[in-house]
């Protein structure tokens, strides 16, 4: 594998030899670059939120409710992006909100990926009745609209941060299982797998050492795009009043809470809405680019 890469790269003009290939590729794709930058910024904000947030995101200032952002008259310079209906600082809430939103997105997808990849690997590799069983389960889950299933599960578990992650995780695994199973079916018959099997390797090492690395590209792409889906789904659940409950801050909850103020205090929902849209855009750009790089077959 390694040799082919090198020979390929030699045929292309390369300005800086020492940079890893993916950096080079990223530089050639402005869209991918934008995506990567957005995602990096969001992750950095999420990590640094406690340090960079100017104020306490849960501190109420009942005398300073619904102040506009500083570029509008009637604002207060303490609150750069204005305040919400309880006089809390919008900027600090946005910064902290990135945290929980990111946690929800990443944790939910990690859970879906874990379930989906495991079932997909098992199903594709072993075949037989295991495959039939898992495939039928896949079809069943696919028949139920995602948000409907999520609603049904929330109705059982109730809405809280952990439950939302579980719900999104348990409803989102299908795409992983489907893709991984398909990949495994093609990889399974390759020479190196047959070779590994013929020298007496057991199933688990074959799966982990030979098959998983081949499907990891698709998994990364899917996971990236699914984070975007999870962030939007979290906000939709919040909109229906079934999401994370305050005082926990997520962008989705801020957007949902501010929706009744849209006509009057637009900043309440517009900022978190923009935050979601920009982040999701970044993730999509990054995901699309990753797909081009890692897994051209997924293109359709």
């Amino acid at each position, binding site marked *: 594998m390694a040799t082919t890469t090198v020979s390929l790269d030699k045929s292309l003009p390369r300005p800086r030899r020492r940079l890893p290939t993916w950096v080079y590729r990223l530089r050639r794709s402005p869209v991918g670059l934008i995506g990567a930058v957005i995602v990096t910024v969001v992750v950095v904000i999420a990590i640094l939120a406690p340090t960079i947030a100017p104020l306490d995101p849960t501190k109420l200032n009942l005398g300073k409710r*619904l102040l506009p952002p500083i570029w509008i008259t009637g604002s207060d310079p303490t609150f750069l992006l204005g305040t919400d209906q*309880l006089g809390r600082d919008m900027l600090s809430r946005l910064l902290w909100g990135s945290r929980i939103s990111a946690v929800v997105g990443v944790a939910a997808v990690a859970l879906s990926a874990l379930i989906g990849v495991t079932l997909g690997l098992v199903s594709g590799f072993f075949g037989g009745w295991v495959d039939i069983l898992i495939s039928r389960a896949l079809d069943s889950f696919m028949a139920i609209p995602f948000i409907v299933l999520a609603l049904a599960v929330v109705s059982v578990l109730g809405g809280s941060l952990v439950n939302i992650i579980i719900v999104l995780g348990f409803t989102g695994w299908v795409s992983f299982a489907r893709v991984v199973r398909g990949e495994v079916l093609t990889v399974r018959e390759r020479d190196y797998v047959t070779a590994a099997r013929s020298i007496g390797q057991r199933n688990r090492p074959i799966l982990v050492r030979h098959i998983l690395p081949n499907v990891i590209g698709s998994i990364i792409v899917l996971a990236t795009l699914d984070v975007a889906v999870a962030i939007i789904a979290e906000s939709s659940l919040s909109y229906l*009043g079934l999401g994370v*409950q*305050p*005082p926990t801050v997520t962008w989705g909850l801020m957007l949902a809470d501010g929706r*009744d103020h849209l006509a*009057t205090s637009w900043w309440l929902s517009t900022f978190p809405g923009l935050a979601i849209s920009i982040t999701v855009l970044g993730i999509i750009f990054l995901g699309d680019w990753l797909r081009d790089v890692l897994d051209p077959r997924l293109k359709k």
Partner: protein
Amino acid sequence: MRRLWPVFIVIALIVVACGGQPAPQPAAPPAASTSAPAAKPASPTEPPKAAPTEAPKAVAPAPTTAPAAPAPTQAAAKTTGGKKIVVGQAEIPTSLDPPTDWAIQATWVHMNLFDCLVWRNRDTNEWAPYLATSWQNINETTWRFKLREGVEFHNGEKFNADAVIWTYQRILDDPKMITYAQWTFIKEMKKISDYEVEFVTKTPEPAFLSKMAGTGCGIQAPIHGKQVGADVSTKPVGAGPYKLVSYTKGDRVILQANEKYWAGKPDIDTVEIRAIPEAATRVAALLSGQIDLTPAVPSQDWKRVQDNANLKLEKALTTQVMILFLRAGPSSKYTDWKGVTSNAKIRQAISLAIDRKALVDLVDGMGVPTTSRITPPTLGSDPKFYNQVGTYDPAKARALIKEAGYDGTPLRMHTANYLLKQSEVAQALQAMLQDVGLKVDMNIMDLTTFREKIYVPYKNEELYLETLGNSFFDPWIAVLSEQSDRRERSGWSGPQADEADKLIRAAAANMNPEDRKKQYIRIQELFNEDPVMVPLYQQYDMFGISKKLQWKPPLDGFLWFGNAKLTQ
């Protein structure tokens, strides 16, 4: 390309097929066309008047402004079935059978379909004849009603003593009825004659008339009721000012004026009540002229409604009081409860730490601060408690907390998040308590989770926030939770608790109003001396109303259209 056409044809067919039967349209029933002209001459002098006695008088103030000049052909499309209004509510009833749904928004609809025996004048809190023309309290436990003669139900059945007895016996016979417990005060009912009926209560009942006008009091047509059984929830027949045209569950109820209404046919021919769950959508529908009336206009939208030339805002008090409940000790449903609020000093401190003025500001002035759940015009309401911000003394609260030896154990607080601003108020309370040094762990839940985990199993911890109404306008229900055998949520005990218990029991059966009033005032004092509930403010409701509609929200904010008028 030709092969593509089936795709479009199939889609088009589905669209057409589904569109062919839109929601039940209020197609003008035969009677409506003749009634419209007839209604016109009658309207100028039409405050609901009844034959012998003065009927529901001053139910809502009679239209003060003269009917505006008819707007030229405006909204002509809307008037096909006579005068019509559309009301937007967050929810509509789940059942049109009054004893099976007692949510406020259901009661509003029920009131228009069914009349009760007595009417409570919502402005003076006095009793007025309704389907009963007079009554007599023969002895402490016996009441005799004289019934209005010549009244017909919507289906033509005669209203008489049998109808009254059947209506209430049906509830008493079925403990599954949601209002069952509310009617068990009735021991028996006797038919004296076709138009005379006697009620015997189990104990002396000072709140008797209140209860007779309470939730689910609507008299139903007995022959029809027996015929349809449980289906009465979708096919209600009463004797109220409006009759049912159609009912689509969870979507809309369409009512039509009862031409034979004993107090005169209502001015508005059709009332359509729609469920629009989203506040933003509801306001948008009002602003765009799609609906004529909606309660609960959020404060941020007041200006937009006011600035609209076709709309006006009307503020109305509700009976709902927002209350912070405290737990003082374990109770039979939660025997192993332990918490810092078992210390009376901490409870005192909590009540001193609350700044009611700030809370009323937070809800944009949509509240009257109060230190009691009993609000005017209910008996026992007193200026000592009502419209009072109470004592706000954070310094004293801090001192008390210190005295109590508070060790920083957090107080657990629960609240549902369903009322306008409930979650905001809860978060503000949390901030106020933390300000005096109490640590509060807050848990804001959706309504069902709150009901299931906290409210219904009586598993409330130190604090919970809830709003309670009193549609009976009698103080008995406002203090009932602290009767010694009902303290599941408070676990209250001590000298104040014992005295309160005696008074609560005595007042509930005290037929002397003056004396009874004194008892309730003392109970309220006891509640404030050793607090297990901290009333915060009585809530207002804000209605957005089309200027064409002459209707003022009554004191309790109920949507009754018997005397509403519409200028075209």
